[in-house]
């Protein structure tokens, strides 16, 4: 069709939709013209005007009918009637409040789940910076392709790139440091400081609340030290003092003047709360030397990301040619800001899988709502048949039922979205922080416009599932049913699909408690997982190495790490001495991970020469494979200093505890715990045995590597919270003595008199005094270690209980609907049977047969699912049944009671309709239908 005609046709179609009254007036005019012409014809034939008019009208027939027929032939002729359908839909919601409540709740839940998952996934996949032209803000870094790690000592390259890169502008850098902020009249507390280029405030242009932001002049050497503080610090540390600008504060070892306060929410570059100028003049600019920095920039006007990447790669190759020693393995990279450089490859799958799961959940939930709507539509079958007989097409009836479901879905979507927004704002941030450590400013969980669009899509899908499917079922073969109904036969029936929906729902309702059991068990384990010493008397400070002094020339990452390690060890000892001088501190020791925090896992090998292999099963767990080597088991290793076991007052059950002399690299001794003795040594004597450790894999340090050193077990202690409480089974613990700091960041544990939390400022001050760059990201009481895990578990628990309650409610509503429907269908039959003297019990049995079968199958399937799940959880590995405690007689009794409850409540749902049926008077029954 030629485009002009095509456009004209669509214009007419749209006009008939939106300007119905004008189009109707034209139709009236056209029909009136026809009548007039017909009258004139009769006048010409010699009739009188009255006769002509009468004759024309007779020939014309019913004007209203013609008008209606013509209107029905229009494109989407039913569309203008939709508003009426929506009104009817609204009335239906009021008329059936039970259905509205259950169906609406179910749909709201489905949409809530979909919106939350979609928001979280899109937020993580495509973070929105919320800055002007945020898609043009980029990050840059160097990547060592040989060491397969980012090289952050890039000051040399930063300066070079700033000079030469043309495809980016405002190139800046920052150092991420934690410093104690000392405010007069308050204690020193650590804050997240960004030593940052002033261009950051061009990339993230934000008007300061007070004073000014950093300027290029502040970056010059010799300029007075200045700081810009964040809103939260200004509020909490400066008591929202409006005269803060100009005040002098101590930040780490530096006195700086506050020059500005940023508004609430500003945390560029990541989650920072205080900004100081990055002064490159005083730093070592040699290649691959100097502090760790991160870089950011804006794409120059007209430049694309690809062009910038190409230009950077070119510069990178040029630098590598000039400085092969330091740069031959370095690859400069450039990416959009906030996008992870090392995104795992499964991201796309995750991005599709999670919303996919939400859609499946919604379809399942709406399947049930469909069941309810179908049951209701079935009770309205006569109304629908009459409409059909009056000429309403099948599509018209389907649209009406769709509109009804859409009204319900619309209200449910509003509720679901509101709940999602509330939940995301309240729990989304803490949840991400719990999992990620820090929460970058671009993650602000709340319902976005994209999520609202997604929810609208979900609502339409929900309305299709819940409205159109039942409508299609109700309207199929309507003509035939009209005849059948007239002949007295039954009409609609619940088919296999509905049976499957009910069975699935009951099955899930039944199986959910297994999940609750597991979560509850986990919570109990977390709460009761004993550390073996009074953890509430201990304080733990996690210490990370401070900045290493600048190197004169390039050294490899390994050498740099080693130097940094040595400095860290010295710092730790100095901090220990200072803290020990505190009157409330009774002892200090170091351990890499805290008790109940989960420790490093490794494989242990026993010295075969000591004749232990016979004591350990020589076959694998499934009995299929004979293990040719020495017996193995997985153990948890804690790296501790020699005084740790003394600090936690753990007596030696056998042998001795660790001694300072054990720290020497050549001493090679370990202490094991009772879990090790029981599980690895199967109760045999441990002291004097030799063991060595390996990791899984084929390279150095793996089981096949025979150069690994042997360690001698010198003592046994009781179990002291090795492993994580969420970990399955009992841990086998090994305490390996190391000099504090050798294995990187470590926990300093202090035994404190009185409340350990009161000495936190003193601990920070001690660390600050030793080295202001030492970082203490967390200080907590040792019994608080599990509070984060508990928070997440409680959140999951609440969600599972909510899910179970909704599933149960839906199942009950579904069963009730089906039974009500069945009874109303069979009212006449039941009435006659009762009238003829049938035993009420037999009538009830015949009625109950179907729902009972459905519920029975559902409970059986759900029970089997729960059982399989529990068996899987308890599955024995390496000969040890790790979770045998999950199935206790009490739990089995609770589960059986729950199953009976489900069954009982389902039967309760049957009682009302059955009583109604049995109370039917035979005469009324005969008149039914």
């Amino acid at each position: 069709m030629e485009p002009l005609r095509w456009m004209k046709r669509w214009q007419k179609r749209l006009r008939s939709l939106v300007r119905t009254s004008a189009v109707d007036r034209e139709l009236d005019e056209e029909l009136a013209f026809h009548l007039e012409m017909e009258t004139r014809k009769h006048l010409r034939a010699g009739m009188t005007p009255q006769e002509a008019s009468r004759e024309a009208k007779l020939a014309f027939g019913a004007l209203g009918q013609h008008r209606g027929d013509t209107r029905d032939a229009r494109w989407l002729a039913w569309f203008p009637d939709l508003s009426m359908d929506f009104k009817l839909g609204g009335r239906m919601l009021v008329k059936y409040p039970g259905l509205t409540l259950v169906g609406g709740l179910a749909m709201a839940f489905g949409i809530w789940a979909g919106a939350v998952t979609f928001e979280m996934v899109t937020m993580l996949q495509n973070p929105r910076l919320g800055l002007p032209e945020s898609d043009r803000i980029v990050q840059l870094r160097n990547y060592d392709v040989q060491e397969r790690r980012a090289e952050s000592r890039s000051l040399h390259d930063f300066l070079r790139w700033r000079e030469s890169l043309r495809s980016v502008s405002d190139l800046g850098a920052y150092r991420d440091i934690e410093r104690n902020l000392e405010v007069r009249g308050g204690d020193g507390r650590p804050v997240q400081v960004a030593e940052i280029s002033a261009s950051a405030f061009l990339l993230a242009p934000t008007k300061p609340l007070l004073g000014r932001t950093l300027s290029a002049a502040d970056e010059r050497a010799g300029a007075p030290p200045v700081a810009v503080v964040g809103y939260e610090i200004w509020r909490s540390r400066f008591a929202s003092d409006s005269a803060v600008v100009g005040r002098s504060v101590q930040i780490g070892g530096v006195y700086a003047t506050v020059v500005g306060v940023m508004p609430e929410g500003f945390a560029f570059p990541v989650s920072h709360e205080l900004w100081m100028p990055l002064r490159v003049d005083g730093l070592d600019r040699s290649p691959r030397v100097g502090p760790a920095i991160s870089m950011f920039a804006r794409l120059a006007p007209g430049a694309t990301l690809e062009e910038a990447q190409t230009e950077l790669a070119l510069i990178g190759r040029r630098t590598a040619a000039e400085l092969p020693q330091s740069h031959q393995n370095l690859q400069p990279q450039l990416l959009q800001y906030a996008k992870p450089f090392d995104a795992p490859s499964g991201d796309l799958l995750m991005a599709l899988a999670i919303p996919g799961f939400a859609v499946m959940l919604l379809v399942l939930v709406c399947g049930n709502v469909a069941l309810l709507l179908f049951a209701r539509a079935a009770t309205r079958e006569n109304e629908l048949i009459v409409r059909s007989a009056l000429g309403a097409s099948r599509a018209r009836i389907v649209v009406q039922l769709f509109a009804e479901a859409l009204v319900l879905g619309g209200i449910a979507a509003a509720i679901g979205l509101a709940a999602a927004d509330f939940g995301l704002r309240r729990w989304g941030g803490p949840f991400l922080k719990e999992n990620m450590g820090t929460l970058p400013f671009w993650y602000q969980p709340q319902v976005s416009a994209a999520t609202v669009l997604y929810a609208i899509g979900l609502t339409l899908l929900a309305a299709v599932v819940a409205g159109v499917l039942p409508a299609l079922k109700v309207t199929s073969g309507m003509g035939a049913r009209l005849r059948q109904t007239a002949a007295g036969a039954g009409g609609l029936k619940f088919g296999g699909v509905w049976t499957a929906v009910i069975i699935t729902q009951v099955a899930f309702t039944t199986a959910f408690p297994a999940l609750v059991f597991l979560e509850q068990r986990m919570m109990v384990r977390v709460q009761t997982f004993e550390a073996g010493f009074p953890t509430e008397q201990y304080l733990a400070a996690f210490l990370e190495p401070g900045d290493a002094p600048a190197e004169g020339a390039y050294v490899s990452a390994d050498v740099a790490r080693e130097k940094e390690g040595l400095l860290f060890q010295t710092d730790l000892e100095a901090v220990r001495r200072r803290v020990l001088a505190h009157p409330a501190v009774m002892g200090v020791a170091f351990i890499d991970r805290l008790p109940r925090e989960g420790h490093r896992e490794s494989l242990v090998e026993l010295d075969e020469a000591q004749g232990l292999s016979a004591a350990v099963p020589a076959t694998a767990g499934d009995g299929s494979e004979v293990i040719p080597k020495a017996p193995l088991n997985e153990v948890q290793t804690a790296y501790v200093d020699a005084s740790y076991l003394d600090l936690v007052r753990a007596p030696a059950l056998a042998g001795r505890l660790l001694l300072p002399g054990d720290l020497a690299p050549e001493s090679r001794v370990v202490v094991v715990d009772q879990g090790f003795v029981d599980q690895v040594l199967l109760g045999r004597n441990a002291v004097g045995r030799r063991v060595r450790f390996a990791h899984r894999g084929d390279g150095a340090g793996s089981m096949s590597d025979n150069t690994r050193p042997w360690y001698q077990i010198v003592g046994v202690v009781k179990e002291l919270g090795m492993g994580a409480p969420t970990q399955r089974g009992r841990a086998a613990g090994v305490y390996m003595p190391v000099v504090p700091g050798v294995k990187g960041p470590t926990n300093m544990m202090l035994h404190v008199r009185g409340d350990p939390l009161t000495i936190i400022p003193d601990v920070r001050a001690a660390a600050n005094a030793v080295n202001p760059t030492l970082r203490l990201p967390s200080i907590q009481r040792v019994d608080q270690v599990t509070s984060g895990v508990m928070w997440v578990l409680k959140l999951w628990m609440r969600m599972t209980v909510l899910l179970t309650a909704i599933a149960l409610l839906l199942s009950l509503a579904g069963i009730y609907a089906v039974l009500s429907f069945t009874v109303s269908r069979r009212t006449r039959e039941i009435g006659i049977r009762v009238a003829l003297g049938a035993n009420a019990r037999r009538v009830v049995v015949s009625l109950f047969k179907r729902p009972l079968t459905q519920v029975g199958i559902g409970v059986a399937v759900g029970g089997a699912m729960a059982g399989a799940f529990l068996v899987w959880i308890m599955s024995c590995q390496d000969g040890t049944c790790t979770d045998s405690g999950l199935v206790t007689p009490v739990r089995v009794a609770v589960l059986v009671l729950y199953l009976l409850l489900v069954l009982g409540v389902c039967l309760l749902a049957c009682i009302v309709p059955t009583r109604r049926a049995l109370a039917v008077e035979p005469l009324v029954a005969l008149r039914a239908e």
Partner: protein
Amino acid sequence: MSPTPIKPPAAPNDVLRGTLDLLILKALSLESMHGWAISQRLEQLSRDVLRVGQGSLYPALQRLEEKGWVDSAWRATDQNRRAKYYELTRAGRRALGVEAESWQRYVSMVDVILRTT
């Protein structure tokens, strides 16, 4: 056997179901005209045998317009009266050829059957 004479339909609206569209297309193939003129043209062409009721005519016109086979526009008649004129589109002309051929085939098939039984 001689062919059975078919009685002309006596009542209006007796246009064989499915053929009205074809007849309208044929009527419009000569010139554009309004609804009443179409009904008159069909009566005239069928020598007053076929009578097209308004109850069928206007929905059929609406249908044909919807299919893109006819187009409509308001114009003044010779007596300077406003009327809605229908005309055949190019697609409508093509459709007329196809429909007419299909009808001829149908008629000849029916004819063959009637002759052989």
